């Protein structure tokens, strides 16, 4: 295992926002936990494409790019060309010393570069060779994403990279393997590497890619116009290069007799982590958060604690960020406390924490969009109008300007504050898919 020397590990800080006062008989405690990591290594926050960071001894990071080479990529022919170009740009963004590989994906996965069953170490020569190899990419065959992921996992685990990341590009549905096979591949790969997924064009399935990105703790987005691929790949790769510490878990301790209602990441995007709990000692569980660079994420934790009398104080949850060490003992990077205080002061117990309110709204917004689009697909126009109207109202009230713009492409907004909308008769597939894919993107509380 690569040893992450201390100075390169970012500093983590945890801030808890909550109204700790509960009324008599109140049991539900909500808190927003902001986790920020800052000041990592010398390149932290400034990932320079191609910049020399030769000081690194041995590859600390490994990245595998999976490019869809199925037959459909040939139509229109620009798609394959753009995918090739985008991959080349991504390769250029790989930092010196980072281990990498390229996989061509069809109904089977094929190593494109370095094609020796392992990873190549990035330097000017290997980057040039990799780009040469891209010319051999041709379209033809089916789509079996599970096989691509398994190969990526095999390649990444052949090296000793601490931070392992994949980038997956596809344009179609996972038609040439059973959903269970993809699921089993995801189960195998979860926790072994992180993966961003991109759908190009409009023939892919939003739920499928969202599921992959979600299971592998990565981002998902649509690239409706293949011409936009290069820029997107570059920014994705830069983000991946900015990661400095992998396999961080959010550890949640709750008192005896309490029950965890949910644990969600709420910024930068909504991601329900409740079911991902791994037990970690008495009354504690770990939720995976993947790898971190210089960044900040928000989590919404909701715990139901046993009732206690007015005047009592209880620790409702202790949140810590833990990093497993090679010797098995977890290193606690930072922690925060969620408290519960029972009071008969109505003014205190009825106060709503602005952060909690904001993210409750953000989660409802994502849900309203997904339900609205679902209803629209199934022909329930009234249901769709109601849900999407609510989404427009929330987006306007919460300041999700980007989401509001996407919604305006699907519905005619009559009055945003009241949520009055009319469904558009004709909606471009790309607009609908963009809205669905980005429905979970959130904005933070206005300063």
């Amino acid at each position, binding site marked *: 295992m690569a040893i992450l020397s201390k100075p390169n590990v970012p500093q983590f800080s945890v801030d808890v926002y909550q109204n700790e006062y509960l009324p008599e008989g109140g049991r539900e405690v909500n808190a927003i936990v902001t986790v920020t990591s800052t000041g990592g290594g010398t390149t932290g926050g400034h990932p320079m494409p191609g910049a020399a960071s030769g000081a690194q001894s041995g590859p600390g990071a490994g990245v595998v790019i999976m490019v869809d080479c199925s037959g459909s990529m040939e139509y229109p022919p620009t798609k394959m060309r753009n995918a090739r170009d985008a991959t080349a740009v991504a390769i250029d963004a790989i930092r010196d010393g980072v281990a990498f590989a390229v996989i061509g994906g069809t109904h089977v996965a094929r190593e494109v570069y370095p094609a020796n069953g392992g990873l190549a170490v990035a330097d000017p020569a290997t980057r040039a060779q990799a780009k040469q190899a891209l010319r051999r990419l041709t379209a033809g065959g089916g789509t079996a994403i599970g096989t691509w992921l398994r190969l990526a996992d095999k390649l990444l685990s052949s090296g000793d990279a601490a931070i392992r990341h994949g980038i997956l590009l596809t344009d179609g549905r996972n038609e040439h393997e059973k959903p269970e096979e993809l699921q089993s591949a995801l189960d195998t790969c979860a926790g072994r590497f992180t993966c961003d997924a991109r759908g190009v064009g409009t023939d892919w399935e939003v739920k499928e890619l969202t599921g992959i990105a979600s299971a592998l703790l990565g981002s998902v987005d649509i690239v409706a116009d293949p011409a936009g691929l290069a820029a997107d790949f570059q920014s994705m790769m830069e983000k991946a290069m900015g990661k400095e510490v992998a396999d961080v878990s959010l550890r949640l301790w709750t008192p005896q007799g309490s029950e965890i209602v949910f644990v969600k990441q709420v910024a930068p995007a909504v991601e329900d982590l409740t079911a991902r709990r791994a037990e970690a000692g*008495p009354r504690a569980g770990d939720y995976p958060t993947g790898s971190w660079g210089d960044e900040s994420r928000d989590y919404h934790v909701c715990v139901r604690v046993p009732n206690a009398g*007015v*005047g009592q104080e209880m*620790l409702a949850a202790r949140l810590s960020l833990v990093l497993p060490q090679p010797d098995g003992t977890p290193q606690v990077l930072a922690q925060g406390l969620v408290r519960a205080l029972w009071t008969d002061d109505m003014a205190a117990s009825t106060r709503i924490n602005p952060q909690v309110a904001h993210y409750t709204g953000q989660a409802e917004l994502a849900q309203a969009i997904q339900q609205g689009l679902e209803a629209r697909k199934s022909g329930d126009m009234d249901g769709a109008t109601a849900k999407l109207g609510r989404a427009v109202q929330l987006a306007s009230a919460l300041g999700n300007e980007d989401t509001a713009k996407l919604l305006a492409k699907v519905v005619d907004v009559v009055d945003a504050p009241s949520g009055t909308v009319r469904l558009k008769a004709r909606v471009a597939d790309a607009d609908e898919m963009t809205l669905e894919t980005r429905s979970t993107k959130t904005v933070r509380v206005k300063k």
Partner: protein
Amino acid sequence: MPPLPESARATQPVSPALCPNCADPLDADDRYCGSCGLDLTAPAPAAAAPPAAAPPPAAAAAEAGEGPATDAFVLAPPKPPRAAPEAADGDTLALGVAVPGARPSVPDGPVCVACGLGGVDDDGYCEHCGHAQPRQRDHQEQELAGVAAVSDRGLRHHRNEDAFAVATTELPDGTPAVAAVVCDGVSTAYRPDDASAAASAAGRESLLAALERGTPAEDAMRTALMAAFDAVTALADEEEPAGGVPHHNSPACTCVSAVVTGPVFTVGWIGDSRAYWVPDDRTQPASRLTEDDSWAARMVSAGLMSEAEAYADARAHAITGWLGADAVEVDPHVAAFQPEGPGVIVVCTDGLWNYAESAAEMAEALPADARVRPLHSARTLLGVALDGGGHDNVTVAVLPFPAAVSRAGFPSA
């Protein structure tokens, strides 16, 4: 005292200040807690864990070495007698520790007062049930020759925002002086507990210094109230969180002090904490010595409402005078009294006087021998407030008059 078995004697804690179960104060020779009945001669369950038990995680062991960082309990459980591990093992059942599997996690430090199972973490919470552990300020008592005070969290508030300070000194001419300062933090303000602590400490220091210089008691009292005011005001300037939301509610508290100097005593106050005079001769009327800075008191004094009407109003307890940076007006009230006979001065916060509002009620609640047993009397008055519901923090100081400083002390039981 009947002879104790050898092992029990060895395990007897070295005069713990507080009961590990209920935080009630203990005497050195107590074998059972007077409040909850906990067997104090039994070793704490944590101590009973034999070395052969499953080793705790490395982190827990390190923690135990340092002892609790919390200020909750001074009490460290006694070290187990190596000689009799089996006996000790049996004794732990006293606390009902019978949950299989819970044992290895039972720490070496203090044990939770709420569930008796978990250890206490560095933040002062139980590692098992999460309950906050009693803090030092939850219940405080102090007795000096000539004055005793008790402060308690009460039953409905999660922390004690009251504070007191007591002191004795001598005037330049050798006359003994006994003082008590009682402060009540304003709950709706920010850091009310810090405000009351700062005000009582600053008030006490200022009062003592002035009296020792020979300043007349009334002037000393006025100066002390202003010193307390300055101390609370200074809190507002402290640690305004950088870039954070400014606190519109500056720390604030009320303050009432009494000082006995020779044949007179002087009372000073700002806010709605009170002082009462209760003569030894209970046939004489007791009296309230302070006039609240409160909405109700103002209404009554302005003749707009009767006392009954005013105190029935929801706004009755809104205070019109307090110590704090946002105080509208600072008007320290000072009054001196020269009683004809002996008696006691009761200085208290509204946590007590809500349950004994009139001077007659206060006199009735006060034991007849209050002058010779001030600490017992203060505890009795606290009991009255807690029996009444304990809706607020309760703080009460009892000062015998004339000052009884020449005596070495008071019987404690």
